[in-house]
Every structure is written in C-alpha cells, then in structure tokens.
C-alpha cells in the first residue's frame, strides 16, 4: 500500500545520520524531525537564522521572535544559536549543511527539480530552495509519486520552471525510494505491498529496475 506522508517522512528519517546538520523544507520534510532516532545527534537548521531548532512550543509559550522557515512558532534547544540570513546561507552555500530534504512538483531523470512556480497560476517564489539545491551535496526529495491529477512527477524532463539543475540524488515517494544516476531513475525500494508494475506505471521518466527490489523497512 502506498505510504502516507508520515511514512514517507519516517522512511527518509533513516537517511539522517549521526552528526548531520539537516535543513528541512516545508511540508512532508518538516515531519522528518519526528522520526529521527533518539540515539543519534542531529541538528536542524532553519534558513531564517536558527541552528538547533527544537519542537513546537507548549501552548502559551509561543515567541513571535522565534519561528522557522515555514513561519511556525518553534523552540530552540540548549546549544542552539541565532544568526543573520547572510550567515545562514553561508552555512548552506558553503556546504556546511549535510543534508537537505525538500518537496518538489517535478523531478527529471537528470536530477533537475522544479518546485517554485506554475506560470500564470501559482507564483509563491523560491524562498531558499534555489540556494539549497544549488549547494547541497546531499539532497533528498520527499513527494508524492504522482500529482492530484494522477500524472507522474518523475519525468524525462521537467515542464515547469526549474529550481535547480542536475542536483537531486535521491527521491522518496509514497510508492518508492529511487536514486537519480546516469540520467535515469534507479528503483531502490518499494513501499510495502506496492508492485514494481505500479511504480513503472507511475513513472514517466526512464526507470531502471534491478532484479530484486526489496520492500522498504522503517
């Protein structure tokens, strides 16, 4: 069965290693924090100027001077630091952040990603996404395999305006875990109960399927 958004986040959490600084995008990526193992040390960076982001505050303890990149009230853990936007993007551009997890509208088999604009329809802006995808060595895209209309989001070529070129390395969807390599999507794992055929059908881009495709574990 296809994964829920929480399960996508849970699967991605396995990619978060001890000692990682991690930037989480809005949406499914934000949920990843809930599933990171307790026995490893990870710090979450928020590009608006927080390192060592903690959970949401208890009711009544919200601070308008302490929010995350999604404008949600947050807390800071002991050992946290606050800084300006230029230094924040020094962390990102300078590749000091180890892992970036973000959503996408489309990913192409060469690693291109589009997630900021639907011309004439939705123009919210790229926020920090263009800096993140242009800089991060390690980018995981968290998204549904198909859009609401049922069309594949894993394409031969992106149709929407790009956020970055040839940068996505790994994708975790509700159906599968895929690696982007040598101009194709390589199927690594499938969601429990989801068949390779289903994944093939939902993938417009070139899909390389090895002999054995294990089911995901969490």
């Amino acid at each position, binding site marked *: 069965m296809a994964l829920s958004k929480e399960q996508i986040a849970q699967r991605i959490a396995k990619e978060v290693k001890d000692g990682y600084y991690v930037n989480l995008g809005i949406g499914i990526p934000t949920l990843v924090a809930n599933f990171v193992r307790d026995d490893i040390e990870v710090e979450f960076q*928020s*590009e*608006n*100027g*927080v390192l060592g982001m903690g*959970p*949401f*505050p*208890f*009711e*009544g*303890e*919200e*601070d*308008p*001077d*302490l*929010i*995350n*990149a*999604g*404008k*949600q*009230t*947050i807390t*800071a853990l002991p050992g946290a630091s*606050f*800084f*300006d*936007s*230029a230094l*924040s*993007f020094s962390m*990102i*551009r300078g590749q000091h952040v180890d892992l970036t997890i973000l959503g996408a509208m489309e990913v192409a088999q060469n690693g*291109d990603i589009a997630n*900021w*604009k639907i011309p*004439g329809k939705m*123009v*919210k*802006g*790229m*926020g*920090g*996404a*263009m*800096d993140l995808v*242009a*800089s991060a060595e390690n980018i995981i895209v968290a998204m549904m395999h198909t859009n609401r209309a049922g069309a594949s989001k894993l394409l031969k070529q992106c149709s929407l*305006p*790009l*956020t*970055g*070129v*040839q940068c996505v390395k790994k994708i975790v969807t509700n159906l599968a875990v895929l690696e982007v390599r040598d101009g194709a999507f390589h199927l690594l794992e499938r969601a429990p109960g989801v068949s390779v055929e289903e994944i093939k059908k939902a993938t417009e881009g070139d899909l390389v399927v090895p002999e054995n495709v294990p089911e995901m574990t969490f």
Partner: protein
Amino acid sequence: MINKKVANVTEACKGVADGMTFMLGGFGLSGIPENAIAELVRLNVNDVTCISNNAGVDDFGLGLLLQKKQIKKMISSYVGENAEFERQMLSGELEVELIPQGTLAQRARAAQSGIPAFYTPAGYGTEVAEGKEAREFNGKMHILEHAFEADFAFVKAWKGDTAGNLIFKGSARNFNPNMCGAATITVAEVEELLPVGSLDPNEVHIPGIFVQRIFQGERYEKRIEQRTVRKK
C-alpha cells in the same frame, strides 16, 4: 559617541519620496519594522520599490502598502502568504522580481560591504540566471549577482543605543543586520533604546556606523503568522 537618536518615526522617515527604493528587514512578520511601515502608509509614498524577503500578509506588514497600491515593484524570495499580492502580480499591476533567498541576503551584505558583485551557484540553469553572466569555478557553474542599491533601509532590532549600536533577538534577526548600511540611509527602530554604555561591545550585532537614525518604536504588535504548539 555620534548621536543617531531621532525623536520619533516621523523624523526617522524624513526624506522618503515617491519612486524610491526601500529595503526592509524581517522574515514573514517576524522582525519587521512595524513603525516605519505604518509611517510609509501614513505618508502615502507611491511607486516605491521594496526589497524584502516577503510581502507581509493581507492586513499586516508590507501588505498594508500593497493594499494602498503604493508599491510599484517587489524584490522578494517568497510571497506565498498574501492573496492581494498574488492578485496584483498576476494582473500585472505589480512588478515582481523573485530571487533566491540566499542571493537576497548576500546582495544586501555586498551593498553593506562595498563588494559590487559576486558569484553564486544559486539559480544557475533557471530563469533567475537569464541575462546574467555564468562562469565556472571549481568545476561548478555560478552566476554573477550585484549588490543592491537602495535609498532607505528600514530595520528592526531588539535593543539599541543612541550611538546606533544594535542587538537582535532570536530569529527576528534575519535580514535586518545585512541591510544595515546597505542603503544610503539606514533607519533602525528598536523595542528598547538605551543610553550609550548600556550595551556590552562584545554583544553588539551591528555597530552604529551602519545606522544613520535610530528611534524607539511606539508599540509592537509582533503578530504570529503560524501559531503552532504542542500539548503539555
């Protein structure tokens, strides 16, 4: 010490005029110069260009200027929380230049620093790169970006002294320090304006040399955009 204190927001905004370019600190509604924005609305300056990461919400922050159609052009990275903004943009009433958030911060810091231009990887291969010089460094493509030019920078700090030294709080810091000294005149508003000697020189985030005018804001609403909590 050189005294940067002015009596109030009216004095602080002296010289603003139609057609000018303003930089405004803040991320979402956090750390925005509330008093200066209110004064710009009151003064009804028009045809202005605003450099600000976001555009406020419909009824607060820069949304107040948008409602009155005072803004000719916005230079921002994310404008998703504002329906009136989207309407003006899609209808062509409002000119919008969307740029990567890190590029926005760095173009402000470059202006502050006398660095006219720099190379960044952000936006290479996208429509952001159109018309810009692209160049390879260390096997990776970058594009050339330029320092901002603006008439006024409006920033908001937590504490300040009359010499213009500023200290920010939490994530309300964001773009505010980077915009200080990035425009011809920098106007800082603070929650608490202290006499010289009140701040530890080690703790000053922005030295007063980057600030031309400072005043204590009359009140701060500090509206929260997304109140998210957990249960005790």
